[in-house]
């Protein structure tokens, strides 16, 4: 093919081979080391800051200046917000994914376009979702509130969840659908009782992945969810979130307040780790189930 393939310079070629092999293995190591460094640093800084009072109290005297209290406001706010958004996203994405896989033919134009718009939405930066959520919020006459945050984060989660669901639901063998039809089931019954049941672990994984993304995103809730020291008691009140608790409290001059940011970071990382472990476990179970 090329001169370099001739056996002419075997030693040089061997050296080249080894040189790149080392370079490549090194690159993998760098990637893994980055992950280790990030998680390590967050835990090293955050663990000492985590105490019982940190996670059971709201900040006292203002989240930016007050030196006492904890991050309960952000924990509760984040859980409400991410759960609400995930629920809303499921309500939209499950029917859509079922529709393009059961009702529409898998290769139909509608299905292709829907997948394409999910791809496009997936690429929209979260700050743009934030700006759009803000416009939507003003348009609907809402103020920065839990509800506005939920809607914005649901939009952000929608493409992530749908793509992940689509990937597993696509794998349901068509024979299974046909067997169900031949028994006289309607498409709806087939979709709910056969397709959903068959791919349930995968669907749950998709939901978990979206939840993880939703709970960690800051830029989209910056405009829409507000921030407060108190616990939200209704959908129309502003809500604090863990990512924003980190962002706002990291920049203060008081170590006690910074500790709250580190504690929030450690907690958020722990939640993400937990969610991805759960998702991984489900995938394992699912693939076992398939074979």
């Amino acid at each position: 093919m090329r001169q370099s393939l001739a056996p002419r310079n075997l030693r040089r070629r061997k050296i080249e081979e080894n040189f790149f092999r080392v370079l490549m293995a090194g690159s993998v190591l760098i990637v893994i080391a980055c992950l280790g460094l990030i998680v390590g640093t967050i835990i090293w800084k955050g663990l000492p800051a985590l105490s019982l009072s940190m996670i059971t109290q709201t900040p006292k005297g203002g989240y930016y200046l007050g030196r006492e209290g904890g991050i309960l406001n952000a924990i509760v706010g984040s859980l409400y917000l991410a759960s609400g958004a995930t629920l809303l996203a499921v309500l939209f994405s499950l029917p859509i994914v079922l529709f393009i896989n059961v009702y529409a033919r898998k290769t139909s134009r509608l299905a292709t376009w829907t997948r394409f718009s999910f791809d496009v939405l997936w690429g929209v930066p979260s700050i743009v979702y934030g700006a759009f959520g803000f416009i939507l919020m003003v348009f609907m006459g809402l103020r920065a509130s839990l509800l506005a945050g939920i809607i914005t984060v649901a939009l952000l989660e929608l493409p992530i969840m749908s793509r992940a669901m689509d990937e597993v639901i696509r794998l349901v063998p068509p024979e299974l659908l046909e067997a169900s039809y031949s028994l006289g089931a309607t498409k709806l019954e087939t979709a709910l009782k056969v397709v959903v049941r068959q791919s349930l672990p995968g669907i749950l994984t998709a939901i978990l992945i979206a939840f993880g993304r939703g709970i960690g995103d800051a830029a989209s809730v910056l405009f829409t969810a507000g921030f407060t020291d108190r616990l939200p008691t209704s959908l129309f009140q502003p809500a604090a979130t863990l990512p924003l608790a980190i962002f706002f409290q990291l920049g203060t001059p008081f170590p006690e307040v910074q500790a709250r940011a580190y504690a929030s970071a450690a907690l958020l990382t722990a939640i993400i780790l937990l969610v991805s472990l759960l998702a991984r476990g489900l995938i394992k179970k699912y693939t076992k189930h398939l074979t």
Partner: protein
Amino acid sequence: MRLLKDALASKVMLVLTFFPGLVVFLIIIGLYLRGRPILAEKPLFSLLFSSSWAPGRGDFGFFPFIMGTLWVTAVALIVAVPISLLASIYLSEYAPRAVQEFIRPMIDLLAGLPSVIYGVWGVLLIVPLVARIAPFFGGTSSGYSILAGGLVLAIMIFPTIIYVSLEVISSIPYELREASLSLGATKWETVKHVVLKKGLQGIIAAIVLGLSRALGETMAVLMVVGNIPKVPQSVFDGGYPLPALIANNYGEMMSVPLYDSALMLAAGVLLVIVLVFNVLARIILVRVERRAG
């Protein structure tokens, strides 16, 4: 009755299916409508290429922010592209299965970490590091700089580039590699002449996806980049990327006339740039997939 339920469900689902496409449109239209007041006063061209940023006086020049975005993204790509490509070649061509299965979840996790976490880490580790090394390059830096932003961003786009290129590389038929190996080529030569050549288009798409991810990333960069509204002169200078501008000023934007309009326009410009890159990458990927399948 059952048929009725089925028909009803099918209608509802059909309507819902138009939703994602609709959202894409609504976002673009919404941002455009909110950005229009400022477009009415100043032509887009002068907004994009003016360096004067003084919202109080009604000066909205996006140029420093656009340059900030470009600098940070360029640094990120220079760092991330070689590392992620080499890593993905190693994972697909060299690594034993056990290693692959060990590393994949880690890359998953890297992709799943929230951007504020990257930001905190950047503040704790990368910023002091940059401040420390700046004197060796004949500059001084607080550490909050383009370089810090670019480094953090590079790590954030590792997973995107690695994933997409892994997929592309794995779609290259195995026989091609075997043919090359049987001709006496070393493994690396096979990679160089067969894998990279065949996968070039797809790898470009992977890089473009990484790029568009980098362009829109907000919080992590915002926390380490310094946020100085000036066109940066070196990587040790602070910068102020477009997403950071939007995120940082939402508080004041309602009190200064046209400010919110300018920010929404900025979001719109950002969206259009990111979408163009995204769609481009997807089109390439679809073509690659079709050829492989």
